[in-house]
């Protein structure tokens, strides 16, 4: 921890970063996002199993009003969002000072202790507990017990459903949605200045939280994440209604990989799946 504080303190003192988006612990021991602006602030920075937030979500907000680099503390999975934003031309690598942290898994429920049953599923599939690139690296990665992947079971079940059964499953889930848009607001990949649900001439998506409005919102959100979701699980964690949102985005990520061999946010130079085409792409959907 001291190492993280020291790295950030130095970065702020030496003006390697204008400010650092990181985590702090509040007086109730909740770990939450925090911006360190001075070397003294850096004393408050921390990292733990409870540092769940994907801080890359703040990059789109802060990128315009700064002279100098934005410092950001990232886990390996969060770095995928940073990479994806660079790939999508939302931010430049040179405008960032990346403080990678070696990670030992994060909790699902922030109110509970870290253990096997309170570990995010993404951690089970985490390719690298050390971020693949960074400007500075802190923390030590420790072994941890892998959680069960209940979601894979559910996905297999849904795959076996008929179209009607699937519709019924999702209708029942989307019925709960209250259109708070927390799923959109926490998502680092949802950076549109004007979201399609806010466009009213014409109105593409009903703004009412009716069955129709909820269905179209949740499906359009999922569509816009096809081949773009980097799997941080933040949307599902934020949803106050407990809708299993990552079932959709994870499935689409799996399809993007099986059909096109593409994983978003894993290469700074590879063109994005959505932003390019290749003559060898399948076109079997055009009939």
């Amino acid at each position: 921890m001291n190492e993280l504080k020291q790295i950030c303190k130095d970065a702020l003192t030496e003006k390697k970063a204008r400010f650092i988006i990181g985590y702090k612990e509040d007086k109730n021991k909740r770990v939450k996002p925090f911006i360190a602006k001075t070397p003294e602030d850096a004393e408050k920075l921390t990292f733990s199993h409870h540092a769940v937030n994907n801080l890359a979500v703040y990059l789109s907000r802060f990128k315009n009003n700064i002279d100098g680099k934005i410092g950001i503390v990232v886990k390996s999975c969060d770095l995928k969002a940073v990479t994806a934003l660079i790939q999508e031309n939302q931010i430049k690598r040179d405008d960032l000072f990346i403080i990678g942290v070696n990670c030992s898994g994060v909790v699902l429920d922030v109110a509970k202790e870290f253990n096997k049953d309170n570990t995010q599923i993404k951690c089970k599939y985490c390719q690298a507990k050390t971020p693949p690139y960074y400007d500075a690296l802190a923390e030590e990665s420790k072994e941890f017990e892998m959680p069960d992947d209940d979601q894979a079971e559910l996905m297999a079940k849904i795959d076996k459903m008929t179209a009607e059964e699937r519709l019924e499953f999702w209708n029942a889930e989307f019925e709960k949605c209250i259109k708070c848009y927390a799923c959109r607001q926490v998502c680092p990949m949802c950076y549109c200045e004007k979201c399609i649900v806010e466009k009213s001439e014409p109105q593409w998506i009903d703004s009412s939280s009716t069955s129709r409005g909820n269905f179209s919102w949740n499906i359009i959100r999922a569509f816009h994440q096809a081949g773009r979701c980097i799997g941080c699980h933040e949307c599902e964690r934020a949803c106050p209604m407990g809708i299993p949102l990552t079932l959709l985005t994870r499935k689409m990520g799996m399809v993007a990989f099986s059909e096109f061999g593409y994983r978003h946010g894993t290469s700074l130079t590879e063109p994005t799946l959505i932003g390019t085409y290749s003559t060898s792409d399948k076109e079997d959907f055009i009939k």
Partner: protein
Amino acid sequence: MEELIISNDNLKKIVHELLNNDCRVIGTTAENKFKEIESADELVLNPGSVPTGSSFKEYFFPKTEPLFFYKQNHSNVDLFDPIPDKSKIVVLGAKPCDAAALPIISKVFNWDYKDDLFNSRLDNSLIIGMSCHYSDEFCFCNDIGGSPENMKGSDVFLKPLADNYFKVTSITPKGEAFIKEYQKYFEKDLGKNKPIERKVENPKHFDYDKVKTWLDNNFENKFWDTAGEMCLGCAQCAFVCPTCHCFDIIDEQNGSCAGRRAKNWDACQFSLFTKHASGHNPRDNQEKRYRQRISHKFKYYMDKFDEVLCTGCGRCSRGCPVSLDILQVVEEINSLPENSNSIQ
């Protein structure tokens, strides 16, 4: 009036009768959620549980509701009123921080315009509150004039006794009529069932008058630059809150010549909330929007309606994706010097 008690079993029998009489019963379930229950067995009253994730306001102020329907017929437009829902609503197991919200938001729905949709639901309702045996770091009902035993907003109030009994207090004429109607299920309190004592303390954190005074004088304080800095601008906090009541009115087409005008939940944390048709937005960043949230709750609503627009339930903080804790923010305001009225 004589002192009454009721057993959990008899309470369920009442619920059973209510359901048979086409009454809508809103109660807490085993998953600790408010839900329109379909059978008495679904009801689980647990005074020791954390407040539900969402409040029950949607049964009085739905997330979306039609104001009228329209149909275009050549050059004519026909308007239709929605069929009013006159069913009786009984809410069972409301915590003091849930029940207290109804009289608070009733004031805004009866200010310059009387909101018939809200009022008719409230008039047709009966709120059965229950004292609360829970408290965590997010709870602060005590700080805004409430308490775990507060009966504000309840028509009937239950206090847990030993052996699955509740002590019953009737608070309003509605509550009295209810007890009379179902009197066969109530028993005289012979003092045999001892009250269950509350185990947790509810500490005092701030003085809301002091917070109000600070808010009166510090609209431009630099405190606001950081208070809401990490807020993501979702509406989780407003939508789960029992006292947030903002709504939007929109026209929605359904087919080519028909549609409806609807009243939908809205929230001051959305960037579109204050955007003018000209494109100007007086609250053009999240910090200003967060200031609005706090000021509306602890200043504007007090100025206008003499009520804190908050019951201290802590829901907004428990669910906030960035753990922005309203209590800690207000506590910090409470600790600031009263006259730091300057842009520093």
